[in-house]
């Protein structure tokens, strides 16, 4: 099948993305591993685009990780999700935007369950009322935060200071887009572009001037897979999945991997380090690793945000080669300084790939 034909088939997989008044929900792991990414998202939405984004200090994790590892039962996670929905309405919002793809999959799964099994929804109402005295309504619009950035990609590009272009050669950067499995593989209609050709990151990359690489293992899992990772004896499966992806993309010489899932971001970043330690193998050019960034970190770079204030030094695979390729003006001496300029010292026992 020709690529145009495939694009046509998947082009009907579009979804409504709200314009404003977003209820923002954090990812439990992302704010720990890459604390600057959520901050960058809020800064882009509030300061650059002038949108109303509300973050409720009372909201909780969706408990998705515990659910997928069978620690939390389905009835419990439904009640936790219902509580977050209740908080959203109590604060006067109806557009729910989780920053985690696992959470987005959980919310989509639960809304679909309630659609097909109304008795589950009624039972959840009873549980929530008994536990908290709250009532909930489903969100009017449920989208992932990468959908929001995708929606406003042209506005961001219009205000961009840099483009995803190699400053020296003028060539577009080669970018691997990696979509989290739970974004649209479970419910293709919930993703922009469906399951096979999601546009949510590819569209962003192309708008910012980069070139998307179509490589054989493009839709392969990053290797997180919850129980493949959480049990140490199974971690060989996790790192093997990542290795298969890196080996598949290596011949295309990617300059950057962009992800929309906290787990993918984390594993594709950290497993490059682990593979280098285990096998002495790196998959980027010149013996370096391939930088892994989230969508709003990439948007933050092109908008000219300070990379260290976005927390890009928290990535184990060094991102400085990418900054140099784009021609980003930054101070390497500020890499390990705190928010008030204090010196945090070099990380101990941490080896960056070809730093």
């Amino acid at each position, binding site marked *: 099948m020709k690529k145009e034909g495939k694009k046509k088939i998947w082009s009907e997989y579009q979804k409504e993305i709200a314009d404003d008044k977003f209820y923002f929900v954090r990812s439990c792991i992302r704010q720990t591993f890459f604390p600057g990414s959520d901050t960058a998202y809020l800064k882009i939405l509030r300061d650059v685009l002038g949108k109303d984004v509300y973050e409720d200090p009372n909201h909780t994790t969706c408990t998705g990780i515990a659910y997928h590892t069978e620690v939390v039962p389905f009835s419990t996670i439904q009640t936790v999700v219902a509580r977050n929905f209740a908080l959203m309405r109590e604060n006067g919002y109806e557009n729910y935007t989780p920053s985690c793809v696992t959470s987005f999959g959980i919310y989509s799964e639960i809304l679909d369950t309630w659609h097909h099994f109304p008795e589950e929804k009624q039972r959840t109402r009873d549980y929530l009322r008994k536990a908290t005295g709250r009532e909930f309504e489903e969100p009017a619009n449920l989208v992932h935060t990468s959908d929001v950035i995708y929606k406003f990609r042209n506005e961001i590009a219009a205000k961009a200071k840099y483009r995803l272009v190699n400053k020296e050669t003028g060539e577009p950067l080669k970018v691997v887009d990696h979509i989290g499995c739970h974004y649209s593989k479970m419910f293709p209609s919930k993703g922009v572009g469906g399951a096979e050709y999601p546009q949510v990151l590819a569209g962003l990359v192309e708008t910012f001037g980069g070139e998307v690489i179509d490589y054989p*293992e493009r839709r392969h899992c990053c290797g997180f897979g919850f129980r493949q990772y959480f049990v*140490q004896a199974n*971690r*060989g499966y996790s790192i093997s999945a990542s*290795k298969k992806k890196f*080996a*598949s993309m290596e011949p295309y010489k990617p300059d950057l991997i962009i992800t929309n899932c906290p787990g993918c971001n984390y594993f594709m970043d950290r497993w490059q380090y682990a593979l280098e*330690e*285990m096998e*002495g193998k790196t998959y980027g050019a010149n013996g370096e690793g391939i930088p892994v960034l989230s969508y709003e970190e990439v948007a933050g770079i092109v908008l000219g945000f300070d990379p260290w204030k976005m927390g890009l030094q928290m990535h184990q695979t060094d991102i400085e080669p990418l900054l140099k390729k784009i021609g980003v003006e930054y101070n390497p001496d500020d890499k390990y300084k705190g928010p008030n300029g204090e010196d945090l010292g070099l990380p101990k026992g941490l080896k960056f790939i070809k730093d």
Partner: protein
Amino acid sequence: MIDFGYTPMPITVHNMDKADLSLAKWLAERDETFNHCISCGSCAATCTAGKFTDFSFRELTHSIRRGEISKAFSESEKCMLCGKCILVCPRNVNTRNIVMLIRKANQIFKP
């Protein structure tokens, strides 16, 4: 090198554009029933050798179709040539003859 307590497995991606299918072609030219196999696994289920070793005729044909020729040669040595697999094959694949041909090919294909 750091021992993390787990290791990555070898990559098992088969690039069929680059696979060496010379043995598959050679076998099909000499016994066309090789192409009749639907990989149902009846042969492996009834295999006496497979009961005591990890031999599987089904896996053997898969290896050949993936171009894993050296693996196919070593695996073919495990067959006891009892012929029970011929009796159960729903597609009348002449399995024993194919094993014999693989062993013969092992002599021819080797440098």
